[in-house]
């Protein structure tokens, strides 16, 4: 069929540019963060459950990709760590190329929209560095050591909120054995978290 055969150059160009990956490769690259990105492992250790994902994984033409580790805790807060990485698809490995940044957000209001989506309003926005993370990790997730006071007032609907944001992502755990310091509520959360 001429319409499918003629633009062979376009096809070849796309094929050359497209780093088609498969799920095995996707997981392998992410799991390589166990060695190359210990902070991501620490976050999962501390908070019990975490999303790990790479923005624009497999996209060609990316100078670098953004690694994300995101956790939801205390029924009100989200903590996201982002860092620029370089991916070697052939070796199924990544190296960190930037400085990690941490974003802590407090959800203050959750609305269930008629179409089933969830709209959230945010209060506190805080950013901190890897050095502050180290303090936080060494103190088992006590945010007061970096000058942040958290509210112990879980929001109604936070589980649905968390589910709404996590369900589109591919679950990956960097922990083989859940060791290391852990926030007091992390174990309980592990038992109650039910990802669909």
């Amino acid at each position, binding site marked *: *069929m001429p*319409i*499918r055969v*003629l*633009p062979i150059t*376009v*096809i070849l160009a*796309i*094929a050359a*540019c*497209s*780093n*088609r*990956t*498969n*799920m095995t490769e*996707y997981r392998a690259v992410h799991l390589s963060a166990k060695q190359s990105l210990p902070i991501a492992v620490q976050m999962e250790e501390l908070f019990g459950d975490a999303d790990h*994902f*790479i*923005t*624009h*994984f*497999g*996209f*060609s*033409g990316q100078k670098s990709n*953004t690694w*994300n580790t*995101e956790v939801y805790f205390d029924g009100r807060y989200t903590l*996201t760590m*982002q860092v620029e990485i370089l991916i070697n698809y052939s070796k199924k490995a990544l190296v960190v190329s930037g400085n990690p*940044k941490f*974003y802590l*957000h407090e959800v203050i209001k959750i609305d269930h*929209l008629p*179409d*089933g*989506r*969830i*709209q*959230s*309003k*945010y209060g506190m*926005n805080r950013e901190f560095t890897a050095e502050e993370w180290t303090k936080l990790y060494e103190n088992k997730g006590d945010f007061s050591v970096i000058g942040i006071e958290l509210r112990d007032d879980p929001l109604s609907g936070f589980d649905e*909120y968390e589910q*709404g*944001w996590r*369900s*589109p*992502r*591919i679950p990956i755990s960097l922990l083989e054995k859940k060791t290391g310091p852990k926030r007091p509520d992390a174990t309980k959360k592990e038992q109650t978290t039910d990802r669909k």
Partner: protein
Amino acid sequence: MIRISVWFASIQHRLCAPPKHRKAAGFPTSAERLESLSTTSGQWAMLAGAAMSQPPSQIPAEVAKHSQTESESDAALPQIGAYGKCIRISQELMSTVGVIPSDDDLSNDSGARSVDGSRGDDRSAGSYSSGHTQSSGDSRSTPHHVASTFSLDKSTDIRATLFGNALFDAFEDFSTQPKVAAPSRRQVRPFDDESKVDRVNGTVTGTVNHDDGVMGPMSNLTAGSLNNPFPTASTMVNLGMGGVASFVGLGLPVGEQLAPAQSIENLETSRPRLSPAEGPDVDVIPTDFVKFVAKSFINGVNPVGVIVPDRPGLPFPLLPPPWDYLLPVGAEYLFTATARLNALASVVGTIEAFNQNPQTDAMDQTYRLFSQIEASFTCDGANIGNVNAFPILDGGNELPLIKGTIDINGPLAARLDASTFEIWWQGFGHPNPLVEPGMQWVAYRTSVNIWHEVRATVYCDDQGTGHGGYLSFQGSQFPSHRLWIDGTKVDDINQGSFSDLWTASAFDWTFVA
């Protein structure tokens, strides 16, 4: 090849045509929306990289911007041909006005905007640290805009306001290097204009008298057909000496009677006229800035969802490259829309993963739609004035190396009360013409545009300090949406199913519900 050309032309035409069905199911057009809102909230005016400096009593009852008409776009297209046919002239004008100045060359530019006394070269990096940054009274930091009013000599039933900015040295050759030319030497300077509206043939003519004494002809502005209730004109004029001026002319509804007493003065006369050399010692009201950023981004393609009702799509043999290559083997034998949707999702979503999760308001390509409105205004006590809004738009990737479109309705502003303005805009975009056939293969759809819509506010407190807020934030059911005000994440909406892209809005069937 003829079939290919015809097919692409058809797709191109469909995708590039501005939404023309805003009235479906009673959804108001932009103009109608303006009109209806103006009845409750006061005067409206367009803020297309332009000033709206009038105190409330001086603003005409309904100064409005309407959605760009095709005739206007067509008239302007020859000037912006290199921009691409999918981008409407109004957006280009606004985007150009809102181009971010470069780091170095603004240091000598008198008209550049500033934040906290510094030059405005860090705006894209989210350097606004608070919601009400003031400019320390430095008059040079205040954007210079001139909004002059002109009206027909022979009639009082049409009136238009001409807004403009002059960008000097922004482009060496506007016709051939419009978009890639970095604004390495950009200035925004005020200008005077003397213009006339000829209602009969619908053109605006005049001359531009710049501060630096350069005189340049102003080309004809298409003022819109007389059938258009909101005759609007926009164009960009090469002023010579490397300068470009953008103009947006606004007209009142034909037949709208205005008393002569409501004539607007040249706004530049209402405040000290500054030469570029003058500066901090001039007593002017400090300008406040608030930056609003909305992003629509693809968290992931799951859940895929179900297309209801099941319906046919573009026959597989008609799929152009690269789709016939990208889709999995056997895709031509998938007979339900949902099965085809899952095949498409396997290509675009789960493996080559978007996983977009923007944490800042930076224009960093980790989104599908990016719309930024930079609002500037002055607070005279609790009274707000001199409201400006500059849009900056960006469209992100849909597939590796393939970017989608971005467009905007608005920004529009309405005075809510003496201390508050509302700024409304809707950012929207549709797939790249290379991508859309894959979507049409899944199932025919009209809802090609994803969107987000913001009703933001800027207001002054009793201490004369400016703030930003928002009244509502909405977006299409797919993808996710997030809103920042001055770098602070304030709101987001998680996404529905991937299949929601095939559900048209009840208000506009070219938009996703």
